[in-house]
Structures are given as structure tokens and as C-alpha cells.
């Protein structure tokens, strides 16, 4: 038995979606530090993260978790009609945490001016920034980020790299699925290569 550390793992996990095997008997253990998930389109990166987050049913195998999970998919997952701030406040309150860090996080991500506008009036990049601000606002131990660089401009990409580095240094478990962005490589502690549903640690 390992000591209690933040992390998530899949054991012999098979995921079948729309009658296709997306992940085949995958064994993945994610611990503190940055883990990069790489693989071509359609190799199962998104499904791997969703399986770690408990968002897809496992046909076989099981999932273990130490600590809460923050999953940010490739859509920003913010409810329209609410502002960025209200969305983040909802998430933080739902976790039973406080909402003090939200304003600062949104400002740091450059959506300080617009944080009270309904999210449907923000650009795709601003929505992405607002959803990434959750990393700082919710302080959750396990972070699962699916293609987080999508929609970000260069400044945003730099900011994201800093955020990931800081989360790693805080001992949080960070998993990033991306098919590119070699600039994360020197931060990473582990790699998972996905090929057509088969995972290999690299």
C-alpha cells in the first residue's frame, strides 16, 4: 500500500464507446508531478482523461483516486447565461471551498475586465482562459487537462506553462493530454503514449 499521495490510476481499464473499443486494458498510474499523454488524433487521449475523471463507464477494470479531481475538457464547460465569475463561484462553492481566489485567478488569466459578462459574450480564447483559471481558484489535487492550449494566444500559452509548472511544484498531480507542445517536455516527469487504445508508459 502506498502512502496517501494525490493521484489517480486506472487498472486494466477497458472503455467501449459506441460499440468501439477506445481503451484496451489500460494500466495508468498518475502521481504528483506532470504526466504528459501523447498520441495522434483518435488514439484515446480524451477518453483516457475522462476515464480518470470518472466520466465514462469502464466496461472492465477499475479506477482509483486519491484526492479530488479537476477535469477541464476541450470545451470550457462554463454555463451560458452566467458570468465567468459566477461559473467559477459555483464550482468552488460546490466543492465546499471558498471563493476568495477567484477574482485574482481570473485577473491573472487576463479576464479581469470581463469577468462579470455572461460567458457567451466572451471570445473562445477568453472562455478558455476563464476555465483554466479554475486551476488556481479550486486548488484541487489532481488536474486533468485535455488539450489546454487550444484557443490560447501566445501570452496565454506562456501563462498556462507557468501555471502547470507551479502546480507541479506544489506537489499536485497534473495530467495534460496534447498532441503537440514540446515546451512542456522539460516539466514532465512521465509520459503516456497512446496508440489506438493501447497505452504504454514512456
Amino acid at each position, binding site marked *: 500500500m502506498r502512502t496517501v499521495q494525490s493521484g489517480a490510476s486506472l487498472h486494466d481499464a477497458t472503455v467501449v464507446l459506441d460499440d468501439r473499443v477506445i481503451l484496451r486494458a489500460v494500466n495508468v498510474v498518475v502521481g504528483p508531478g506532470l504526466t504528459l499523454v501523447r498520441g495522434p488524433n483518435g488514439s484515446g487521449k480524451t477518453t483516457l482523461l475522462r476515464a480518470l*475523471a*470518472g*466520466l*465514462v*463507464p469502464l466496461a472492465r477494470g477499475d479506477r482509483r483516486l486519491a484526492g*479530488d*479531481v*479537476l*477535469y477541464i*475538457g476541450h*470545451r*470550457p*464547460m*462554463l*454555463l*451560458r*447565461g*452566467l458570468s465567468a465569475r*459566477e461559473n467559477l463561484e*459555483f*464550482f468552488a*462553492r*460546490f*466543492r*465546499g471551498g471558498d471563493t476568495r481566489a477567484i477574482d485574482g485567478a481570473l485577473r491573472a488569466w487576463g479576464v479581469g475586465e470581463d469577468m462579470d459578462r*455572461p*460567458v457567451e459574450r466572451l471570445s473562445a480564447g477568453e*472562455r478558455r482562459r476563464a476555465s483554466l483559471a479554475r486551476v488556481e481558484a479550486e486548488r484541487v489535487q489532481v488536474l486533468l487537462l485535455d488539450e489546454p492550449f487550444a484557443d490560447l494566444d501566445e501570452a496565454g500559452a506562456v501563462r498556462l506553462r507557468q501555471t502547470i509548472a507551479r502546480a507541479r511544484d506544489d506537489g499536485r498531480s497534473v495530467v495534460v493530454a496534447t498532441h503537440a507542445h514540446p515546451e512542456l517536455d522539460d516539466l514532465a516527469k512521465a509520459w503516456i503514449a497512446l496508440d489506438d487504445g493501447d497505452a504504454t508508459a514512456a
Partner: protein
Amino acid sequence: MIALYRIALVAARELRAERRQPDGVVAAVTFIAVLVLLESLVVGPQIARDADVASALFWLALAFATILATMRSFDRELEDDALEGLVALPGGRDALFGGKVLALAMVLVLVATVGGILSLVLLDLPVALPVHLIVVVLLGVLALPPIVIVDVVLALRLRARAALVPILALPVLVPQLVAATRGTSAALSGDAVGALSWAGLLFAFSVVYTVIGLTIVPAAIE
């Protein structure tokens, strides 16, 4: 306690979004208003004023309005995967159903009030027992959302879901619609005992189906 707090948070989130973008309310209110207007045109003002006919059409319209508002609410959740953001939270799956029931019941109170007042005014319905009427309508409004929400969740992301949801929901809603219609008709025509017994039944229905929904819906969300 924490479960109730989370349900309240989901309901508050829903109501806030609905207030900013009242698509669900607008669709439902317009629908029920059009139906009340058409009713008296189509069946003639004399028959439309019949307590049974007016109540039956009111509740059928409200059932469809519930389906409209619920589907609208989940459409909003599907934009930008907001639903996923909620479900990915610890306890999110469990809070979803309760929060939606609470929020939609409140939305429907508004819809039912507008639709009810319109019916009373346009059809010039005599109300024998106004307090009983309000009780029946309130309890009827509480009885509709649990089933409709379950069925909308079951049809989520399926093609042809706009057709599927009424097919799934309406047969299951038969007891609620019968009870609400009879209760309303009883309150309109002055049968206090009838109105109250149907109201009691409606209350029992909402409790039963809310409990079933709370138990079973988390399993249905993936």
C-alpha cells in the same frame, strides 16, 4: 446536509441562467398562452368553459410546457459541455437531479401562474374554491418535473430526442395528469373533498418520483 446544499447550488445556478436567458420560460409561457387561445377558438367558448375541458387542456399544455422548458435547460447544459463540468465535480451527479427538479418547479410555478390567469380571464372561468385551486395547481406543478427530467436525461444526446421525450414522458405522466385535471376541475366546480384528495395524491406522486429519480438518475448520467 452537504447534499442539500449542493442541490440548492445547482438550482440557484439554473435559475440565474434562466433569468439572464429566459428561453425556457418564454417558450413555455408562449406555448401555454397560444394553447389557451386556440382552445376557445377550436372547441368554441361554450365547451371551452367546461371545468373538465379547461382543466384537461391546461394540464396537457403544462405537461408539454414542462418538456419544452426541461429540454431547453439541458440544451443549455450541453453547450460548451457545461453539464460535464457539473458532473465531473465530486457529488455533481447526485446533485443534478434534485437541483433541476427544484429549479424547474419554480420556473413552472411562473408558467402555470401566467397560463392559469390567462385561462381564467380568457375563458371567464368561475372559480368556486380559489384556495383549493392554488393548492392543486402548486402540487401538480411539483409532480411534473421529476419524470420529465428523468426522460430528458435518458434521451440526452440522442438523435430525434425532441420526439422521443414526449413519447417516453407522457404515458408515465398519466397518473399525474389525471390527478391534476380532476383536482383542478373539482376546485373549479366547488368539490372541496375531491380537490383535496387529488391534491394529496399529487403530493404523493411528487414524493415517490422524486425519490426514484434521486436514486436512479445518477446511474443514467455518463
